[in-house]
């Protein structure tokens, strides 16, 4: 039945593609817009819609972690909080957006909260949010990807996306807020300091 030599192999025995391929951004945007519209038919409010987008992102993030660790880190995974954050800010962002994220900050008020912010995430490029749904940020999908990566690496966190209006900038920036589980921080404190 399996006549093609490549597909006769079990999927884990096949070589992992190099990942240089590109498709048009429109193709992605068309698909993403259908995805948002589909999710919208199954939810009753914006919070749920964002949560659904996030769930779909998580599936992507879990897989991206595997691919990126395999390609860039010699199959090694970071175990320190700061390293993981740097990985998200640099490697993951480069992979997703072709550049590293603008800022990576720790919250002033809470030790367990970190933020990554950036402008012009491609998911929002062709999306105009209607006025009555003002709080919706389709970057929830990117938040989901980040959550997938963090969860997969063993750093459980609640990840949410927010618009932050900036003075002197026409567009708000998108901040991805990561709030880590208390267990993650407890573990981090037990490990010897860097």
């Amino acid at each position, binding site marked *: 039945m399996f006549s093609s030599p490549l*597909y006769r192999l079990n999927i884990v025995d096949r070589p992992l593609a190099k990942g240089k391929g590109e498709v048009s951004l429109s193709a992605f945007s068309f698909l993403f817009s259908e995805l948002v519209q*589909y999710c919208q038919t199954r939810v009753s409010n914006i919070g749920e819609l964002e949560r659904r987008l996030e769930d779909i992102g998580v*599936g992507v993030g879990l897989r991206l972690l595997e691919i990126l660790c395999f390609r860039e880190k010699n199959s090694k995974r970071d175990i320190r909080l700061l390293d993981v954050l740097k990985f998200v800010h640099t490697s993951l962002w480069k992979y997703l957006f072709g550049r590293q994220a603008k800022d990576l900050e720790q919250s002033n008020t809470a030790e367990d909260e970190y933020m990554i912010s950036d402008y012009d995430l491609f998911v929002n490029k062709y999306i105009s949010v209607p006025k009555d749904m003002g709080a919706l940020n389709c970057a929830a999908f990117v938040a989901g990807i980040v959550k997938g990566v963090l969860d997969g690496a063993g750093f459980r966190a609640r990840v949410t996306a927010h618009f932050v209006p900036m003075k002197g900038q026409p567009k708000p920036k998108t901040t991805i807020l990561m709030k880590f589980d208390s267990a993650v921080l407890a573990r981090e404190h037990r490990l010897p300091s860097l």
Partner: protein
Amino acid sequence: MDAINAEIFTLTYGSMVRQLIADLEDVNEVNKQLDTMGYNIGIRLIDEFLAKSKTGKCIDFRDTADKIAKVGFKMFLNTSAAVANWNADSTECSLILEDNPLTDFVELPENYAGLSYCNVLCGVIRGALEMVNINVSCNFVKDVLRGDDVSELRLKLLSQMHETYPYKDDD
């Protein structure tokens, strides 16, 4: 045209299909939903295709199939398809996908053998052609994910309306 890493596209599509399976719980429903989504994409995508591809009117259905395979797939998925297996009166043909970015990283579990994973493509082609007054039916007859050696999309011309001038809609 702006481009994006193909793997993100692939993984997003995969995640979406998984969500559909979880929501709809029936592969036939999922196939239908994918086709509908594809159709919605197709009716919008044709505008961009016509605006950016600089192709003129198709002379006949053979020309149409060629443009889909060589220009359309190239433009949006950065791959191309071969057109083959024409029937005698040139109303049916197959698009053979050489390299389908949607199927990377995918393994179809046995209990989902009925899933037409890339069904969205059928919808896209159907929707896009409908906007240029060509009605087709489109479905996968071979799929690498089901163990075939290639993915084959069967395209069948149902009817073709000729626009007549003056257009009635514009009154």
